Every structure is written in structure tokens, then in C-alpha cells.
């Protein structure tokens, strides 16, 4: 706990120093708006009644994109991890497509899926899919072979070996992958909302950047950080529950 307190003290200290530096004119507010004006910008958003709209539209896209990407990524990861044909086909596929910057596909996604929610969700899903697939099959590869051999020696049917040995054995690695994929989903939120979004935290950040409204820009960034922190905490909770045995 004292370590956790240290992080808080350091954070508060940094923010206080930042506020002070702007207030005393060491830093121009054009370049770095004071924390207080960032909060003020957030407050304006709240008063205008659009804060919740931005957050909720983004949450829907994040949840949709992450769920689709994770579902497909798990399926692909399992196919690669437990099925040699799946591995032969899947690994080169994943290696070739993973490094593509998803943002460069936006025009194509618009042509295929339009500028509604589908293309935004697909952008996030694509970003989430590859790291999930890779984390999943790597986690399956890391399940100790002797445990599988043990299960087979007791005549467990293949489905049971998968469900009772491979899946729980791969779970830590898969959950670690979730940590990465939620961050990627948040990073891609801004890209996704480049596609004709009028609301959403990403759209708000883009607009603030395009208008050089740096206080609003940082307010949007703050919202994404808070979201990231909340998702990270939730994942830690889930990990603690599912991986109690560690």
C-alpha cells in the first residue's frame, strides 16, 4: 500500500507543479494549458450535456470492437494452437497482416462497410484481433505438455483435455493478451472515430486538435486515460478472481 500511495503523491505533485508553472507564466497556456483549464473544459462538456454522449458512444464502439475482435482472435488462436492445419494456414496469415497499420485501411473499410458504426467497430476489432490471436496460440503453446500427456493417460476425451487442461492452462497468457488488446482498442478509438463520427471521445479529441483547442484536447486525453485506468483495474480484478490458484 505505501507504494501505491507514492504513485498518488507523485501524480499530485506533478499536477501541482504543472499548474504552478502555467500560473506563474513559465509555460505559455497556448502550449500547455493548466490542469485547471483542462478540468474547466471537462466541466463545460458536462454542462453542455455532451460529455455522456461522447463517452457512451465511444464505450459502445469499444465494447463492440473489442468483443468482435477478441471472439475472432480467440477462435483463430485456438485453431492455430491445437490444430496443425490451422497453424500451417494461420501463422503466416497473422504474421503478414498484423503489422499493417489499421489506419491505412480506413478508406477501404469505408467502401466496404460505410461510415456508420460497422466500420468504426471493424477498425477496433481488426486492431484487437491480431494480438489476441497471437497471445492465445502462444499461451496454448506454453501449456506444459506433460499435463496434456497426463490427461490422455487417464483417457480424457479430447474435448475434456481442451476444456480442462488446455484452456485453463492458457488462461493467464490469454488474460495478459486482453490487457494489451484493451489498450490497443483505446488507441484505435481515435482512428475509428476519424470515420465520420460526430460524437465520441476520439472524435472530440480530433476536433479539439483540428481547432487547436489544447485544453479540450487534453480533456479528451484525460477521459481516455481514465477509461484505460478503469479497464485496467477491472482486468486486474478479473485476473485475481480467475487466477486465484497462482
Amino acid at each position: 500500500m505505501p507504494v501505491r500511495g507514492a504513485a498518488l503523491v507523485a501524480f499530485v505533485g506533478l499536477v501541482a507543479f504543472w499548474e504552478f508553472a502555467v500560473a506563474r507564466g513559465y509555460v505559455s497556456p497556448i502550449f500547455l494549458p493548466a490542469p485547471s483549464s483542462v478540468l474547466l473544459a471537462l466541466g463545460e462538456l458536462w454542462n453542455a450535456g455532451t460529455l455522456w454522449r461522447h463517452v457512451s458512444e465511444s464505450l459502445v464502439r469499444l465494447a463492440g470492437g473489442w468483443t468482435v475482435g477478441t471472439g475472432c482472435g480467440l477462435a483463430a488462436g485456438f485453431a492455430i494452437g491445437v490444430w496443425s492445419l490451422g497453424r500451417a494456414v494461420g501463422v503466416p496469415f497473422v504474421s503478414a497482416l498484423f503489422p499493417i497499420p489499421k489506419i491505412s485501411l480506413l478508406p477501404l473499410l469505408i467502401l466496404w462497410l460505410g461510415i456508420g458504426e460497422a466500420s468504426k467497430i471493424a477498425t477496433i476489432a481488426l486492431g484487437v484481433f491480431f494480438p489476441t490471436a497471437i497471445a492465445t496460440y502462444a499461451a496454448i503453446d506454453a501449456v506444459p505438455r506433460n499435463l496434456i500427456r497426463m490427461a490422455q493417460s487417464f483417457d480424457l476425451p479430447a474435448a475434456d483435455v481442451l476444456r480442462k487442461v488446455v484452456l485453463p492452462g492458457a488462461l493467464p497468457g490469454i488474460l495478459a493478451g486482453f490487457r494489451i488488446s484493451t489498450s490497443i482498442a483505446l488507441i484505435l478509438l481515435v482512428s475509428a472515430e476519424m470515420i465520420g463520427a460526430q460524437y465520441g471521445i476520439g472524435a472530440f479529441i480530433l476536433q479539439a486538435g483540428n481547432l487547436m483547442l489544447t485544453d479540450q484536447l487534453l480533456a479528451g486525453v484525460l477521459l481516455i486515460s481514465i477509461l484505460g485506468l478503469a479497464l485496467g483495474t477491472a482486468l486486474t480484478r478479473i485476473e485475481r478472481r480467475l487466477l486465484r490458484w497462482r
Partner: protein
Amino acid sequence: MIRITRRAALAGAVAGLAAPSLARAQNLTKTSVGVLRLSSSGPVFIAAERGYWREAGLDVELKYFTAAQQVPVAVTSGDADFGVTGLTAAFFNLAGKGALKIVAAQSREEKGFELNAYMATNAAIEKGFRSIRDFPGKRLGITTAGSTFHYALGLIARKYGFDPASVTLVPLQTLPNMQAAFKGGQVDAVIVPVTLARALEADKAGKILAWVGDETPWQLGALFTSPRAISEKRDLVERFIRGYLRGAADFNAAFNQRDAAGKEVRGTNFAETIGVVARAVQQSPELVTIGLPFVDAQGRLDVGDIYNQIAFWQQAGLVARDVNGKDIVDLSFVRGHMNVPRS
């Protein structure tokens, strides 16, 4: 093979060095200007190439940027002393914080200059989108809120008396995204630069309804600097503008001439001047010839329009209410500005 003796080579080198070293001996004042590689910055390229600044005692470094909003940021941060670029809401937000002052004109939308087009998709046209009066209720793809395209909507809204908020803006950030959304019919209309408009028309994706300049002339871009430079180095600012205006005059003389019927005619030094601009924007002269903007030969601003721009952005909630045109424009460097509001 020609053999060059050492002495001959040395002599050549000395000769080559002579001109610049002479210039350096004049003690040129160093300064810099932020530009985009666009033909609308032609006056800058011409002034640099033809030594107009050197004659004014300046050694001007051209700093190239890739997006319009980077230029005012660079001037604000002191990375460049001057900037030339299109006017956007972002510009007015920075200028409103006391960081920038407009001192002369860059390009202007004018009748007969086909720079930016209002376009409708075939599907929208079939459904009755016949003219730009039909914008209300339609979905318009633009790059971003606060862009020059957004203002182009504001102009026709005022002209034809509809509420700009009755048009659904779809911000798509990049021109390729806009192109894709237009082709896919996800928007009813776009406002795009001439090259993209021609390409979309050639692809039979839609039709050009009107040209922005034909509809409403307006002050597209400007030359600006920091208030500090004006108060502390007024002499330098004046000399810079002198060189810039010679470039603007050359630009206008070469590219902006029209005959009595309003048809384009090639002006003074057309080919050579196109070459200068083409090299700077790194495109073929043929491509540059399409979409050459109008630049006032004397750098005069449409001041009234700048005030209108600010009012439009404030109306849209994109620029703070306390931003005032008077504080942003310095009219003392160029004579004969147009539409200067009285107050």
C-alpha cells in the same frame, strides 16, 4: 572525356562561390517562413527563387510543413517568424490568444477560379439534389469541423439563407476517406479541391454543382507573423512583406490574367514562373497549372470576410466569443485593403 586541370577547377569553384559570398558580405538578416507545398504559397517560392528577399536584405529560410494547422503553430512557438497558409478555425483560436497577426493576403477564392467544388453524388442528384440550395437535410462530408471546407458551407448558407446546422456534417479527416465515403454513397455531398473533384467526376461518382469561388469570393489564406515580431522588429517585417508582395505581383501577373470574356490567358513569364512553383510543390507543371488560385497582386486582404469567418466560427461554437477581428489583423503594412469594417 574532358580533362580539367586543377587550376581551372579551382577557378571555377571560386567563381561559383563569388555570388553567395558577396551576398553574405552584405550582412543579410536571417528569418524564416513556414509554408505548405501548395501552389497558393507561390508568392513565397517566387520571392525566394528570384532573390526578392535578398534584395531586401533578408536571408529567408523556407520551412515546409504538411498540414495547414502546423504553420500557425510553428509561428506561435517561434519555429518560424512568418507563416503563409489557409485560414481555419484553428488559426483564429491561436490568433485569439494573442499569438498571431495577419499582415497580408495569400490566396483568395474569386469568380472564374476553380479551386474548390461543391459536389453531389449521383444517388443524391437522382433524389433531387439539383443545386447548392438543396443542402439542408443532406449529409456533407468534410475533412474536419473548422476547415476551409466547413466555411465554404457557411458561405452558401448565408447566401441562400439556410441554417448551416441543418446540414449534417460528417468529418472524415482525410481526403482519401472523403473520396471513399463519396464513392460509396455514404455522404450526399462533399466540398473538395479541384484535383479530387475532377477525379471523382471522371470516376462518374457524382457531379460538380458549383465552384466555391464562383459562388462567393472570400479570403482563403493569409500571411501572418507574431505580434512580438511586429513590435520588436517592425523593420524586418516590412522588408519581408516587400519581398513577399513582389512575389505576389509576379504570381498574379503570370497566372491570374483574364481576357475581356473572362477566359484564362497566360501572363508574363508564365512558363518560367510555373517552373518555379512546380519545383517547390514537387509536382509536374501541367498538374500545377490546374487549380492555380487567385492571389492579389498587392497583397490586399478582404478584411470584411475575415470578420465574417470569425463570426461564423463563433456561431458554430468552434471559436471563443472573445476573439476579435480587430486584434488579429494588422492593416498597417499593405495599403488599400478591401471591405474594411468601419468600427
